[in-house]
């Protein structure tokens, strides 16, 4: 997998098909790979792990351009992100 590009690069149409596939199958993916990072290429899961680093390591030697990589949430996750220092402007 080509990991880096000289400038931000538009992915091919296949990437967007895979992205739509990823979203359409999110519920099934959440059952199979709960709270894991998942990589999809041409409508297939090609790597999954709780560690994104492991997914990227597995993808690097493979001949896949622009896989879709995302985190599959199972259940309802609420990310609050409140730092300890809050004041109102």
């Amino acid at each position: 997998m080509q990991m880096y590009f000289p400038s931000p690069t538009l992915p091919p149409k296949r990437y967007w098909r895979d992205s739509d596939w990823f979203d359409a199958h999110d519920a099934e993916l959440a059952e199979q790979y709960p709270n894991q990072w998942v990589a999809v290429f041409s409508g297939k899961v090609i790597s999954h792990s709780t560690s994104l680093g492991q997914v990227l390591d597995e993808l690097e030697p493979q001949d896949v351009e622009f896989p879709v990589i995302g985190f599959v949430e199972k259940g309802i996750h609420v990310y609050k992100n409140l730092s300890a220092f809050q004041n109102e402007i």
Partner: protein
Amino acid sequence: MSTKISLRFKTKYDGELLKHGLQVRVIRLMASVCFNTPMGWTASFKAIVDTGNPVTILPEIVHRHIHRRILHPDPVSLFGVGRGEVLAHLAEIEMAFVGKRQLSPPLRIKAYLLTDNSLPVLIGYEDVLTDVTLVSAYPRRKAYIEFR
């Protein structure tokens, strides 16, 4: 001349509640983003556009190799993420939104860099949503951000 980047809604039902006959949709507003690194720009990552999030959050593996400038030497405690409280460094990074037909201009933003990989990329307000027009029209399944 503006740049419009389409966003996508991801909708599913909460599986556990569905077993009890309760239909609760889990809806996420999704974007594709890439990051600048010393080796070049990364391929795209799926990211959640989180309007309840003040500052963008990046998991460790995403920020490990990217250009970053730590803005404060001490880590900050973030509450309510992970299993309660997690530590993160505030840094300046460079990212871009990836659309089907267009790319956003590179954005230099402040972001919290997490120490683990348990969370997705969460796009927050500071330096990102503060600088764009965000349109979210779920009934029409239409969403985009517009840069002017």
